[in-house]
């Protein structure tokens, strides 16, 4: 049986264990005079039996699924004749993929050497065997542990405490999974980044003003010497983010002020969801809006004024990105402004302040730290945004502050470096990881700063 099916079977077994455990606790309670003589409710006895049945079986299943591939590989390679045993890691993976191709029928047996065909047969046999062992073991563990859990149900057993404790660990495992994923991402990026800095010096990467990662793929190929200076990319990112924030902050903030202070409840109920709809539009849609509508408009308009403008401009990408970010700023600011106590508004209005004076002198200063936090979160969103800039900002790594020129950003370069054919030992591919690491650090720093500011704000009214 496949691991996924087996997982479903285990769940069904656990449900059966639940029903049986529930029934057993009730039948034990009946002679005592009702379920109030049980230490816990029948639900907890059932849940306890289900946990006993499910958890060990799932652990066995998980371990088996995780290690069977590696073990089978070792067995297959070990059975090869001595002269075919690969000497390098690369050759080994080549050989293994050839064997599995033969086994899956993608490569007709006639095209492979006899030992490989043999190994492929052995691989198929081992896989089938492994599936049988796995099925048998998992079902056996589920039934046995479930039975143990079931038979040990006693009226005096505090099943509730045990179930609660187990649930706590299950929740913890879910939280840990998210953290482990983040750690995994960090490590995968970090190792490649270190390899990149083995090829390209820190100084060139951080201070170089040239970015042209096209390097020769073969020794005899005629190609430029690659240049890996990240300065033009980060200035491009900063330029576009700055344009985006110039659009998003005033519009978002003022609409938040309108929504929270001026709009009637009815208008607010309509406008707020509409504004938040902007955040729900896929970025690729924004991308072609920027590339096909806004960018030509800007370049035509600039041309009519006699200014030279590129057909792909930082202004188009940044402006559209700003529109996309408006709901981030407006929603967060709206929440923060609403969190300012009504008593402060009343206090100011009762002194004869107008609504706008109250906003300017009392509400806004009180909400400012929270608003700053929201803006910083929006900035980190802008820095990490990819699709719009890929489509509208261009690929040319110009070191410029002119928003009408085409620039490129860190994210765009990562995309271009990692799409298509790659080889993982060239500086060109590894550069993507170095850029990713820098981007990660930058947005992480912004997020930490934003959270810090928001938390500081929260303490003020508690």
């Amino acid at each position, binding site marked *: 049986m496949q691991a996924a099916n087996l997982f479903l079977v285990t769940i069904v077994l656990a449900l059966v264990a639940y029903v049986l455990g529930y029934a057993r606790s009730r039948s034990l309670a009946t002679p005592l005079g009702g379920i109030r003589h049980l230490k816990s409710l029948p639900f907890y006895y059932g849940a306890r039996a289900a946990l006993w049945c499910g958890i060990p079986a799932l652990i066995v299943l998980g371990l088996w699924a995780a290690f069977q591939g590696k073990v089978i590989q070792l067995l297959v390679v070990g059975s090869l004749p001595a002269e075919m045993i690969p000497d390098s890691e690369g050759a080994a993976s080549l050989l293994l993929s050839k064997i599995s191709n033969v086994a899956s029928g993608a490569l007709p047996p006639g095209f492979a050497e006899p030992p490989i065909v043999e190994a492929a047969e052995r691989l198929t046999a081992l896989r089938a065997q492994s599936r049988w062992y796995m099925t048998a073991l998992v079902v056996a563990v589920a039934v046995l542990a479930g039975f143990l859990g079931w038979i040990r149900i006693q009226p005096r057993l505090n099943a509730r405490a045990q179930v609660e404790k187990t649930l706590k660990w299950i929740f913890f495992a879910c939280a840990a999974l998210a953290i482990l994923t983040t750690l995994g991402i960090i490590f995968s990026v970090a190792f490649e980044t270190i390899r990149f800095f083995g090829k390209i010096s820190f100084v060139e990467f951080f201070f170089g003003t040239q970015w042209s990662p096209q390097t020769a793929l073969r020794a005899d190929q005629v190609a430029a010497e690659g240049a890996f200076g990240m300065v033009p990319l980060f200035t491009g990112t900063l330029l576009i983010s700055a344009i985006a924030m110039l659009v998003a902050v005033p519009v978002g903030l003022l609409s938040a002020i309108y929504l929270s202070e001026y709009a009637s409840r009815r208008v607010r109920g309509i406008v707020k969801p509409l504004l938040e709809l902007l955040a729900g539009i896929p970025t690729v849609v924004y991308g072609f809006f920027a590339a096909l509508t806004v960018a030509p408009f800007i370049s035509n308009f600039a041309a009519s004024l006699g200014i030279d403008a590129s057909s792909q401009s930082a202004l188009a990408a940044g402006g559209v990105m700003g529109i996309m970010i408006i709901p981030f700023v407006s929603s967060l600011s709206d929440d923060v402004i609403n969190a300012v106590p009504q008593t*402060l508004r009343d*206090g100011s*209005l*009762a*002194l*004869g*302040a107008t609504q706008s004076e109250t906003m300017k*002198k009392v509400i806004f200063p009180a909400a400012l730290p929270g608003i700053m936090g929201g803006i910083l979160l929006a900035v980190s969103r802008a820095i990490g945004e990819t699709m719009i800039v890929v489509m509208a900002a261009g690929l040319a790594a110009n070191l410029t502050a002119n928003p009408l020129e085409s620039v490129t950003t860190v994210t765009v370069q990562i995309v271009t470096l990692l799409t298509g054919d790659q080889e993982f030992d060239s500086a060109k591919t590894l550069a993507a990881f170095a850029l990713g690491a820098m981007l990660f650090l930058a947005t992480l720093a912004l997020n930490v700063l934003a959270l810090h500011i928001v938390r500081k704000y929260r303490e003020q009214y508690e």
Partner: protein
Amino acid sequence: MNTMNTTVTKEAAMPDETPVPVQEERPAETIIQEGATVGTPFADDPKFKLRNVEVFYGQDRAIKNISLDIARNEVIAFIGPSGCGKSTFLRCLNRMNDSIDICRVKGDLHLDDENIYDPKRDVVELRARVGMVFQKPNPFPKSIYDNVAYGPRIHGLANRKSDLDDIVENSLRKAGLWEEAKDRLDATATGMSGGQQQRLCIARAIAVSPEVILMDEPCSALDPIATAKVEELIAEMSESYTIVIVTHSMQQAARVSHRTAYFHLGHLVEVNETNKVFTAPEHELTESYITGRFG
């Protein structure tokens, strides 16, 4: 107490005033005559002249045909069970009800013969003349100095820094806070004790030189010592201001006010000299309330 009668008003008046069931011998509606207030609701040459005032929250009539005069430089206390409309009525006097969408006010409300609810009336000017102190101390999260200077600044009352300094000092002195605050004017106001904060709010209201000060249960969030200080302050302030105070404490009403108005279910039942209200109330509902039979 033979029949238990519960009368619940659906008044949505103040969010912090939840209506409570009222127990009495007969339903209040049969005792109260709408618009007929016993005692002395009227005065010669009043500061506020309020006639046939009605307040609606949506469909609910929260204030039912109230007529009342508030004399110059008097301290008048509004008392009554929770949800009786006293805070709502108070908030009509400086139009603080305006910010509630569903609230409508009907009737003639005059401050020195000027219509308060004239559509052309500037509420900013009205509120500069009619200051307000709230139930919960609500200093702005600014320095003590900036809190007091807030009103004078928005109304342009001081041309020079030294004028502003004088206003701040005088206001704090009048609020009895100068000695405690003079060395920490730049400290943030939210760091003060509750009683100090409330006196700061009074100083803040005084700083714009209002003619009237409305107080909405100003001591309900304060401890007895801070309460005593605020009451002392009210007595001093009554020389120069007209003060309208809503209170849940009958002792407080008895201590600080000249006249007392008793509200019940949106009706103004009785207005009389405070002494008389607490010793010989004219209306049986007033008597029930002050003797603690409900409320």
